[in-house]
């Protein structure tokens, strides 16, 4: 009977300790609500969503929840939900740039700190802390500079735009159009892959240019799929391209298949559009040093000389066909 109180005491101690540790653990986890687009939107988004899930995990000290929808009103509802749940940080990649003022202000009142990623929102900068974005204009500048530095004169470009009016299309077109205006290069054909950034449409743009007898030595396609379509048109027409060919091929987005094509010298260069903002945001949160306003991510351009396997594994998105495999 004597031992009984001792066991009781022991149990009590264990109980207190375990509760305590639980409380401690809960206090240590940072609550993050992520409002994002659905992964099936694109390979970029898939990588982005996965990156968010990976970084804002329990192992990393976060209690992270993510909502994925392409519907702006559903996104706003989800954001309100997170604010009610009392998250510490709210991360948003908005489906639509407008309509967010109310919810951002109520986040502010509730003391929730808002960080935008990937997509900007049309609102007063005071309504959020920081926005970590891809600088599409910078990406375009990287590609344009590469063309100016690596292609012998005269430079004759086929421009294949993405969805007209999208931030990516505007940003990636501008430096090239400016260079053309300045007479540094000629744009011999100006087409678009349409709203779906379509491979088939891009192919037709190049086929039409060939049929019209245009002379060109650069294809500037604003995503990898369209670059692929353009190359298909060249292949069918028997026009050489890539490292040792006549026509230089530039794509965007860092799809692994595209990087492998660059590595094999089948294409010439690819520009990164980094979907992995989570690491940077994690660093800001952990360091407690969150910048104010728009911050652009650092992004790369890789060509046949600079590309390595490591780049492809680390920065690429989507499925990897494997070293030396060309995707035609």
């Amino acid at each position, binding site marked *: 009977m004597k031992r009984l109180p001792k066991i009781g005491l022991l149990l009590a101690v264990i109980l207190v300790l375990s509760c305590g540790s639980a409380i401690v653990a809960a206090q240590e986890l940072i609550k993050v609500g992520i409002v994002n687009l*659905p*992964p*099936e*939107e*694109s*390979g970029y988004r*898939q990588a982005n969503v*996965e990156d968010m899930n990976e970084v804002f995990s329990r192992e990393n000290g976060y209690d992270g929840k993510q909502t994925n929808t392409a519907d702006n009103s559903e996104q706003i509802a989800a954001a309100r939900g997170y604010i009610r749940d009392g998250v510490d940080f709210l991360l948003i990649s908005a489906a639509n740039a407008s309509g967010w003022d109310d919810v951002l202000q109520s986040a502010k009142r509730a003391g929730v700190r808002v960080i935008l990623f990937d997509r900007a929102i049309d609102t007063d900068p005071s309504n959020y802390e920081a926005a970590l974005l891809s600088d599409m204009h910078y990406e375009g500048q990287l590609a344009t500079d590469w063309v100016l530095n690596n292609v012998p004169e005269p430079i004759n470009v086929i421009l294949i*735009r993405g969805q*007209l009016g999208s931030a990516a299309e505007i940003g990636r077109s501008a430096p090239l159009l400016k260079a053309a205006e300045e007479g540094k290069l000629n744009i011999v*054909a*100006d*087409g*678009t892959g349409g*709203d*779906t*950034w*379509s*491979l*088939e*449409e891009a*192919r*037709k*743009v190049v*086929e*039409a240019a060939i*049929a*019209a*007898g245009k002379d060109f030595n650069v294809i500037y396609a604003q995503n990898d*799929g369209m670059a*692929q379509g353009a190359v*298909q048109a060249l*292949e*069918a*027409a*028997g026009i050489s391209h890539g490292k040792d060919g006549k026509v230089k091929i530039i794509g965007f987005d860092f*799809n692994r*298949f595209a990087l492998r094509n660059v590595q094999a010298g089948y294409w010439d260069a690819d520009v990164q559009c980094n979907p992995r903002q989570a690491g940077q945001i994690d660093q800001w949160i952990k360091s407690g040093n969150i910048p104010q306003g728009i911050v652009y991510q650092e992004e790369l351009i890789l060509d046949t000389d600079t590309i390595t396997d490591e780049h492809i594994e680390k920065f690429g998105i*989507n*499925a*990897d*066909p494997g070293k030396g*495999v*060309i*995707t*035609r």
Partner: protein
Amino acid sequence: MPRLKTRVNNVSNLFLPLSVLVILIIINLIKGADYFKITMVNGAFYGNIPNILFGASELVILSIGMTFVTAASRGQDISIGESGAISSAIFVQYVLSSGNVTLWTILVGFVISCLAGIVIGAFNGTLVSFFNVQPMVATLILFLGGRSIAFIIDGKVSPILANEISNRIGTVIPGVPIHTPIILTVVFIAIVAVILKTTNLRLYVEAVGVNPSAARLNGINPKKVIFLTFVLMGVFSAVAGFIAVNKAGRHDSVNLLKFIMMDAILAVALGGNSLSGGKFSITGSIIGAYTIEVLNRTLLRLEVNPEAIKLFKAVFIIVLMIIASPVVRVYAKKALDKAKGIFSNYSAGQTGGLSNGAVSAADTTGKRGE
């Protein structure tokens, strides 16, 4: 003799879709006289015509399916692109999972993807025929959800189909001068022709589309016929998906065959088919599909500003649809008859027309005299 007459009749039904195509070709010829020029590139034919045939292959196949669906169900299947994305995702997964890719692997994968197409078609068909859901509403389900399904099948990435056989299916087989998708389309059209020849598909579909009640009283089960057209549409979507994915060399669940139902429906309409069902012309739809392809390329050839290209396409389509509409047809026929009448009167001597009137007036008085 009566046979000949019906032939002529059929041709006259195709006269307007064909004339639309001819107008477009003339525009192209004005732009460049070498429009029809075909050269050999790496042992394969190359030129505008091969490019058009190559580019339109999926659309042609889907337009044929859409024609059947439209004729029988008096509505349209808007999930064909999604259906093609799902079945081709299954094809890709099968090929990737089998390691060493042989022709056999591709064939089995193709058959499996067609089976998937049947399942998808059966799903849509069940909703439409047995639950009486409007075709557009029924197929809206897959239109909205289909790409997510394909995305999941893809393992949330865009898998690469980098094997030599797929490449050949998507481009050319060495030694064969014609691009493989063109050959596949021709084979497909031939199979459809054989089906139409050896079955009563046409009669059943038309009877159901025109008058389901009368069709039923003649022993046809309208529900089964409508169901069948959706199943066919599913298989056709799988075939189109197969071609599209082999052309692309990787499976992009987001963009593969996206919004192609718009063009397919348009092709059916341009082919002179009524979108509210009934009699149909497969030939018309095929011409319609190629017309759309030519139109797309014509706009590029005319170097229409990318910002304005959609507007131009819309304007072109409206003009083409007006040209092909029954109203204009009737009007054109009237005008033609009138022209003929004037011509014959003229040749009979200018007084002929006048004296005709005089004769009939005399007749009238004569009769009253009785």
